[in-house]
């Protein structure tokens, strides 16, 4: 029987399997992300968290299954989506400024051949202001710190003015101030009714940051409101045999008093 994936869900994944060179990385993923949630995807290294995002965005081929954005395939719904890739996925030595990168978020609406003008530059500047680094607009991107680079990516996503935000480890290797700035921004977006899906690796902050949680380890272990999903049993199932990690989990659970 086909599980229910009604079109009101910003993201509905049905029977998704992804394999690299015949080795499955994700299999039989069934997932519904409710509208207006700030959702975290959590799981051990190699659990396929980034792969899940990329498969939903058609960046890597799906071996089987589908991912629907408000009931329709991704290529019909691009306008609704903003994507923040992992910071290491690009060459930060590239000869462009922070503002140039942020302005790339306007390219889709501009279309072929048209150059960015004052409107786009202003949009980009506003977005940089929202992430608190408008004073760095003209810096070459290699001269930015890791946290600042992450903020540039975030600003580019803001310029896209989307309904759903796909974020791949936005908190990875950033300073504490940037982490606070990012989460504040995500909460603001969330309060405007936007849906945010965020790959995350730090168990200690899960229950503070996210109201919806997907526990992933090559398959979906559990998915639902964080208050119901973030349990000792589910974490055991997700992190299973990884003993050293298990200690971390136990420690985390103790800290959050569960």
């Amino acid at each position, binding site marked *: 029987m086909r599980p229910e994936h009604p079109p009101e869900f910003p993201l509905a994944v049905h029977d998704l399997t992804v394999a690299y060179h015949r080795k499955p990385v994700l299999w039989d993923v069934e997932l519904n992300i409710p509208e207006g949630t700030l959702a975290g995807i959590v799981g051990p290294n190699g659990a396929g968290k980034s792969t899940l995002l990329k498969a939903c965005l058609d960046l890597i081929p799906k071996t089987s299954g589908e991912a629907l954005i408000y009931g329709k395939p991704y290529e019909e719904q691009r306008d609704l989506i903003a994507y923040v890739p992992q910071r290491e996925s690009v060459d930060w030595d590239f000869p462009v400024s922070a503002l140039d990168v942020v302005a790339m978020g306007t*390219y889709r609406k501009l279309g072929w051949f048209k*150059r960015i003008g004052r409107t786009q530059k202003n949009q980009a500047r506003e977005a940089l202001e929202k992430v608190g680094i408008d004073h760095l607009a003209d810096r070459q991107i290699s001269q930015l710190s890791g946290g600042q680079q992450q903020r540039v990516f975030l600003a580019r996503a803001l310029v896209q003015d989307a309904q759903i935000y796909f974020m791949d480890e936005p908190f990875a290797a950033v300073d504490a101030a940037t982490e606070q700035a990012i989460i504040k921004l995500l909460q603001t977006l969330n309060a405007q009714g936007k849906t945010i899906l965020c790959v995350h690796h730090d168990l200690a902050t899960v229950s503070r940051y996210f109201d919806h949680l997907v526990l992933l380890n090559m398959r979906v272990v559990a998915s639902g409101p964080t208050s119901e999903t973030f349990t000792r049993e589910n974490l055991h199932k997700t992190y299973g045999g990884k003993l050293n990690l298990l200690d971390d989990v136990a420690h985390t659970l103790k800290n959050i008093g569960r």
Partner: protein
Amino acid sequence: MTLELLRETLFLEKHNTRLVVLGVAFLGATAGLIGSFLLLRKQSLLGDALSHATLPGIGIAFAVMSWMGLSGRSLPGLLIGATITGLLGVILVLAIRRSTRLKDDAAMGIVLSVFFGLGIAILKMVEKIPGQSAAGLDSFIYGKTASMVWSDFFLIAGTLAVTTVITVLILKELTLLCFDSNFASTEGWSTLGLDIILMALVTAVTVVGLQAVGLILIIAFLITPPTAARFWTNRLGYMLVLSTVIGAISGWIGASISALYSNLPAGAIIVITAALIFLLSMIFGTARGVLPRYLRHRKLQKKVGRQHILRSTYEILENTQDSPPLKNLPIPMELLRKHRYWAKGELPKLIRQARAEDHVERQPTGELRLSESGFGEASRITRNHRLWELYLIKHADIAPSHVDRDADMVEHLLGAEIVHQLEAALELAKSTIESPHLIESR
């Protein structure tokens, strides 16, 4: 005599070399422009595979045209042949990359050498076709500028003009592709399509450049100008312009010299010219050149050193006097030596530097005393340093995104209001604790 000839050639006064020099300069400009994107897309080697894969096409085209009873050496025909096998080579690389787990460099190395070997063999075979002279076909390997006629020139110039116009039209799209192809693809741009366009542009330049530069060295013509340009700027726009200019100059000079000495292969001279420009750029390039970087580092070191010695002296004065106002008294070297960690030989060097700047003077007793200007500077540096420290302590939440700044710029960066607040806090703190450094040194 020779100089006069060179001048005439460079300034296009000589009728028989004018076409060649203009054509190759134009080729260099276009190669510099497109090469920038090839470099930024990190596909330089693919360009190399492409150019080597053109050789069999040249031989085959020669054979086919001879067989059809045409002149085997018609340039358009040869270039069409070159394009076909060149593209075949690229497609083969991409196919190997997709369907096997071989790495890029292995795939390209195999395709490059196999096609080149095949090309050499085919050239040797077509030499034996009766009634046709295949002599000169090997100029496609090393390049030969002398053999350009008007129709060739129009073919080359036309192709280059179209290529340039297309590149300029899709600058934005190519930039996005090169910087973040995944993002481009989620935004609905066909990255495969853009990559194909980029490779088509590279192919066009490579193929029309074959005759002048030769297939072995054309890759240098594509890659050297943008690499050199990158040393001068961090802006893509400037880099593209500069790379175009460097390409044009290399082509201009290279073609002129090789036209004068007909036994010098054009490709080699052009590449050597470009390499010289590259070398100069690597050393002197204002954005990332070796020398400016070294000088900037030295300047920073000197500045930090000056701040260290002046602040240390000032802090010692504060430590050794009980009541304000602070008097500028001579201090024993011993105290300064112990005040903070100095690398071996650092302190004498810094003192020499400070004396040269008239910040300190040596007393006959061997003690060190701040000059009047040095005293003012020391007090300013110490105050700014403490303001920064205080700022970092008080505003730890927002500070990290601001701390990559110079301590000297405290007022400029934080604004008068915050500085006033900090100063007030500093006054308050003075009566109780002074500076974290002072506590340590007591």
